[in-house]
């Protein structure tokens, strides 16, 4: 059975800094079941009006990479009642559990909300990222 959970927990928010090591995620989210989503941006610091890619590392509660997941990305600015200016899509799995998300762009400063729907094959989980740009 597909288990659908809606749980957003921003474990820690590490604001973009070029000082960060390449492997340090910009944000890390965890679902109730222990699924961890680590987010890396190819553009740091993230700027408005510049299209770029993110990498998403998905691991299960035991820290093992989750492969062959189907990931949907939606989002917008709840305070402005509009969505993302683009339709970012996961276009490939770069390595086990690590996915390339292309077409990310933000066109306003302020609070953004992004919802990742991850179908692992065993369950569908939603993780929500809130961040200020």
């Amino acid at each position: 059975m597909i288990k659908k959970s809606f749980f957003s927990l921003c474990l820690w928010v590490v604001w973009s800094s070029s000082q960060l090591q390449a492997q340090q995620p910009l944000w890390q989210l965890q679902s109730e079941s222990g699924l961890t989503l680590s987010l890396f941006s190819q553009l740091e610091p993230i700027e408005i009006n510049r299209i770029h890619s993110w990498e998403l590392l998905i691991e299960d509660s035991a820290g093992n990479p989750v492969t062959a997941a189907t990931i949907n990305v939606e989002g917008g600015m709840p305070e402005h009642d509009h969505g993302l200016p683009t339709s970012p899509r996961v276009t490939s799995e770069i390595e086990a559990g690590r996915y390339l998300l292309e077409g990310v762009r933000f066109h306003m400063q302020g609070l953004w909300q992004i919802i990742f729907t991850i179908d692992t094959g065993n369950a569908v989980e939603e993780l929500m990222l809130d961040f200020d740009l």
Partner: protein
Amino acid sequence: MRFIVIALLIIGSGITAWNLRPAPVPDYWTEQEIALIKSLSLSNLPPLPADPSNQYADNENAAKFGQQLYFDTRLSGSGNFSCASCHKPELNFTDGLELAVAAGAGTRHTPSLIGLSYSPWYYWDGRKDSQWSQALAPLEAINEHDTNRLAIARLIESDPAYLETYRTIFGELPELPALNVGAAPVGRNETMSNWNKLDPSEQDAINRVFSNVGKALAAYQRRLIPGRGRFDDYADLLDTSDPRTDVGELEANEIAGLNLFIGRAQCINCHNGPLLTNHEFHNNGVLVVSGQLPPMGRYDGVRIARDDPFNCLGEYSDAEASECVELRFARDSNDLVGAHKTPTLRNIAETAPYMHGGQLATLDEVLRHYNEAPVSMLSHNEAKPLDLRQAELDQLKSFLLTLSAPLATDSHWLQAPLVTLPANQ
């Protein structure tokens, strides 16, 4: 009775006084405000973004060729119109009209070309994804240049100087079909009928020349860059270690206007970055142009862009598919109904009237429109009423005037080339 008159006078005077009360001028900026203000300065304008779909975008000879073509009225069916007929250099590359007028009556207000090369999308509804592709459409529009791609290819072929310049930049001109009439897949019925009689290789040869003409026009238009206004000098003087607002360059009411711009008036939401535009599409509830149906805006525009044979993914583009990220990941959802592109505010005081249909004649009307944020006739107005007083709107306008400046582009690009190429001989 006398009491009522006196009461009304007092109330009326109160409302007038309230309306005339300007916003206070802040003494200090916060660190965040200084960061926001500096983000709008031309000092933070990045280098021109590459256009991988146009390998000639930064080619000097292509830009010079594009300048010749831009001012050449032979690129029209009647011989009367060039790109400069509507995008007039002396009017900041606009025409001062509500709706464009060339071979016929236009349906859209002529947008300025200044700084446009930073945008991933062109036209008010974003129906084009590159500057070179954009440059092609008006040439064949019946109400604009009203010519056709075969006629343009023939012009290049028949003008010795154009032919030599073309060869230098793009290589040999392909052999054109022996057809002494106009031909194009769009435009007039006869022209389309002629196009359909050509075989694919002939069509391809014409398209190749036509797309190269667009690429030269884009190489020229890329160079139209805004110049520094008083605002930019002010922004550069701000210092977080001494965050006073009165650092010179701007008057008190202009500083108050800037404070509103980045704050309560929320202009910066869409008019952000050094060009004061996010290059995106928004429904701002502006009235429909008289006599027109409510436009679908970006909702239709993105679909037109995807189907365009001259888009980034098309065979006349120089880009790899992987480089066409804006087109491949373009959003097309229902909330784009009625959405139009945010224009730059650089030199905005010099480019009246405003909006995609020139619906608002003055900056005062624009500011009143956003202050009221009327309900949109189609879809929803993203803007919300601001409830600013008239004096505050005046302050905002004062700030907008500080964004005017001569272009950074060298003046020789802002006129027809001094050395004119020989006409058909």
